[in-house]
């Protein structure tokens, strides 16, 4: 795949309020670096992530979308992330079925204590998206400048 030079991807990270958002906070407090391309959106629980949010993120210019939530079994609301897991599995499978690069979406479980994992995950995801290049298959041409 041809990758444009200086391609700076936009990555949207939906982070659960109780674990991953705190994890992101921790990585900041510990001065662990992760790319500025990541735009974090806080959600109350990973299961708040409506599939529509992912699609709209792509529509409005995201090149990759990642969902971070509590580890299975640790959900603040007991079982939210279990439902999210099923939904995201099916949604990602459908996106792949429609021919959209499967690496563009990801789910990672990051706890409040895993600041380093958060940063590492983001570094890795941004690198993956940079390699994949611009999101062309789920873009809305009207939103392009």
């Amino acid at each position, binding site marked *: 795949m041809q990758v444009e030079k200086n391609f700076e991807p936009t990555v949207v990270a939906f982070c659960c309020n109780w674990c991953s958002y705190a994890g992101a906070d921790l990585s900041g407090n510990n001065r662990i670096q992760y790319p500025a391309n990541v735009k974090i959106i806080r959600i109350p629980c990973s299961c708040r992530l409506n599939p*529509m949010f992912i699609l709209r993120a*792509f529509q409005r210019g995201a090149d990759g979308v990642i969902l971070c939530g509590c580890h299975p079994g640790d959900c603040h609301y007991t079982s939210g992330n*279990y439902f999210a897991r099923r939904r995201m599995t099916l*949604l990602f499978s459908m996106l792949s079925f*429609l021919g959209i690069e499967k690496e563009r979406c990801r789910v990672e479980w990051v706890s409040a204590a895993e600041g380093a994992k958060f940063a590492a995950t983001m570094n890795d995801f941004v690198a993956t998206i940079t390699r994949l290049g611009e999101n062309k298959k*789920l873009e809305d*041409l*009207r939103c392009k400048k």
Partner: protein
Amino acid sequence: MQEVIKQKAIELLSSGKADRVLGWKEGEFFYDITPAVFTDVKEIEEKFVYNAFCGPNFSKYLVAESRKDGKIAVFLKPCDTYSFQQLLKEHRILRDKVYAVGIPCDGMVDIEKIRQKKIKGITGVTEAGEVLQIDTIYGKKEVAKKDVLAERCENCKSKKHVVYDELIGEEGDVLDSHRFDLVEKIEAMSEEERFAFWQNELSRCIRCNACRNVCPACTCEKCVFDNPASGIDQKAAADSFEEKMFHIIRAFHVAGRCTDCGECSRVCPQNIPLHLLNRKFIKDINEFYGEYQAGADMETRAPLTDYQTDDCEPSVILTKGDQ
């Protein structure tokens, strides 16, 4: 068969077992059949039909009809009973207001497929066993019925009625269908091929909403696509993104509840194979979370409102299929 069902309709109405009968009403031709509520025996005698063109699934009409006064009798083909039961499970139909009669079905014919065989000006069809004799303004034609069966009937998943008050004819069995074959074929394509395939199919969408409005699983009082507060209400796909978004979300919203009745593909004026999207979800659910057939029973939890602590991670798709 038409006579038996017609007599049953008359009997139900005249005996007072039902106040209204939901059935098929003949049209201008033999194939343009309209679902209709009959309240009058004479009308049933004159207009009631049941033939190979009675495709419409009545389950969704019952959501509104069962809330009206009096009892309604309804005729359900095997696949319709799945949708009916799924709606019962979701408490969308008031069961005691409905008298369900299961009727046999040997597959419905798709008039489009006859037209695609370059048969023009069709004025009449007679079923003679496996062959359809077709009268046209340009002379008589013949086609094998199996060649013009609707896609969903070619791959019929079940001849069994899962719920009814009364059954006409013999009870059938759940069949071993090949309905996932095409899904598998698409899965086996490369990413670019899949994208091109769906781009071509979905680009024809005219956003008439027929697939959504006919779907027995789409019974929201207000659809997100009609709700200005949702931020994604759209009337027409102004960009190819919006086509994809509509169809992904439509299929996702019925995932785990879709019984694979095939109405979406039947009604699509642009012949987009929408059922493939639904079947993809069904197939994935079967693979990831165990076999599940929506509407087959009243007890099991739907896969998306259920979970196991050891479910597979979403990353499973990274290693699945794709050369």
